[in-house]
């Protein structure tokens, strides 16, 4: 065959589709200490995020939203990965995740399932789908934008 068949099983790994179909931590919290929502006006992806933070630990997290498999699975995996850890840890994972997508960096083992989204880096128009939930998390936790100014330019 003269031309390669496009390979989508790599972009849409099973773990992504699984989180898309069965989102973890879906819903809302009764008494969130932090919350934020965000949308991607171009494609209509929406994420609303609730957190319950005690001291500097993220004890509980819930999200709801609508949109493509990338935006929704990213949110689901994000909640799984950062819930139970400290805010500093969330910030560190955020940086690693952004590096993976924006700079196409080798995924760090600390990313866990989130590593599955590395294929998105090959699709620049979809990167903002994967980053939407992180943008919302940053807003909810009031994490300084400038800290990530370099990586948020894809917005």
């Amino acid at each position: 065959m003269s031309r390669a068949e496009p390979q989508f099983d790599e972009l849409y790994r099973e773990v992504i589709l699984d989180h898309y179909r069965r989102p973890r931590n879906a819903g809302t919290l009764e008494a969130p200490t932090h919350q934020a929502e965000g949308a991607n006006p171009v494609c209509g992806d929406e994420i609303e995020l609730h957190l319950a933070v005690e001291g500097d630990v993220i004890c509980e997290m819930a999200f709801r939203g609508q949109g493509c498999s990338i935006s929704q699975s990213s949110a689901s995996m994000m909640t799984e990965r950062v819930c139970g850890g400290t805010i500093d840890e969330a910030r560190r994972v955020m940086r690693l995740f952004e590096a993976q997508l924006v700079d196409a960096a080798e995924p760090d083992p600390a990313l866990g399932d989130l590593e599955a989204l590395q294929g998105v880096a090959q699709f620049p128009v979809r990167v903002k789908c994967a980053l939407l939930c992180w943008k919302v998390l940053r807003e909810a936790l009031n994490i300084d934008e400038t800290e990530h100014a370099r990586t948020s330019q894809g917005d």
Partner: protein
Amino acid sequence: MSIDTARIREDFPILSREVNGRPLVYLDNAATTQKPRAVIDALKHYYETQNANIHRGIHTLAVEATEAYEGVREKAAQHIGAASAEDIVFTRNTTESINLVARAWGDANLREGDEIVLTLMEHHSNIVPWQLVAQRTGAVLRYAGIDADGRLDLDALRSLIGERTKVVSVTHMSNVLGTINPIAEIAGMARKAGALLLVDGAQSAPHLPVDVEALGCDVFAFSAHKMLGPTGVGVLWARPGLLAEMEPFLGGGEMISIVKPEGSTWADGPHKFEAGTPNIADVIAFGSALDYLADLGMTEVREHEKRITAYAIEALEASGGITVHGPHDVEVRGGAVSFEVDGVHPHDISTIVDAYGVAIRAGHHCAQLLMRHLEVPATNRASFYIYNEEREVDALVAALDEAKRVFGRVESRTAV
């Protein structure tokens, strides 16, 4: 003579390029169409041989450029069956044409409590300008709904149009559902109420034979870029006499007659609404697009699109797991075909089919009221034009099969 797509395709340089290693399959014509060589050459020819500012010059270039520009007014009038080129205003696009009317006619004629009747299938460009004028004047917006088949609910529309109705503004053809609205019938309702009828022709002027006299509307708006022409040119036609009744939209050069310190008088005819140096080159190139369509014949264009739309609707639904929105009868619809693929979001579909060189659109198509009505966040849309062939529909369907396979992997595993 029917449309010969193989011959037509030779006139469109872009159709021979590849995308992601595949021949381009361009099915996003409702957003904008590709341009034939004649249009691209006309731009070059103008800049290389005639470039001059129009209307204000005595020198040869200025005269030639003015004649070429004014000649397109004539062609645009012919395209929509208008009696006089004097009723054709050049704008930037459909959006600006509608804003012009909402400002210049709406601000002068709408009062608190007056009603503006729209439909749920309007493009944002036929909603937001009216919302703005409603804010300025206290007028109220009313929206006619659509039925399960995606057709305008004419009874609802009839009951909405009454004594207080001052404007009825509807699309001739939906850019999402493809639905063609019965404008002549709606014109009867508007006339009885003494309301102004504006028709958004952005999707009809490129695809259907249009006769504004037969439609019976007061205003008709469309965009050159959706009908083989360049970006940056829109058309506004107003029924004879209406332009003279309207106050100016933008002020400046070209649109005046006499300027004095205490005030000015306005130019006659369409020039009153063309302040400043217009988009001369693109208007002139639009003339070549109108010639191209006139040579093909709009009846033939419509017949070709009926054929390919019928083929597409059938092929999409036959492939399984796909629902096509809007009427399925091609007599009452055009070639903008929105569809859902079960369990796969439109953005994921677009990414996958793009890898096969297939360009379709995913999103709300600037019709959020309609998306809410359909209860979907977004749709996929394939839209056809004179150069599209059935094999391109086949390429789309094959690419969609791949999307279904990719997304089916987990579904079949987790299904119980």
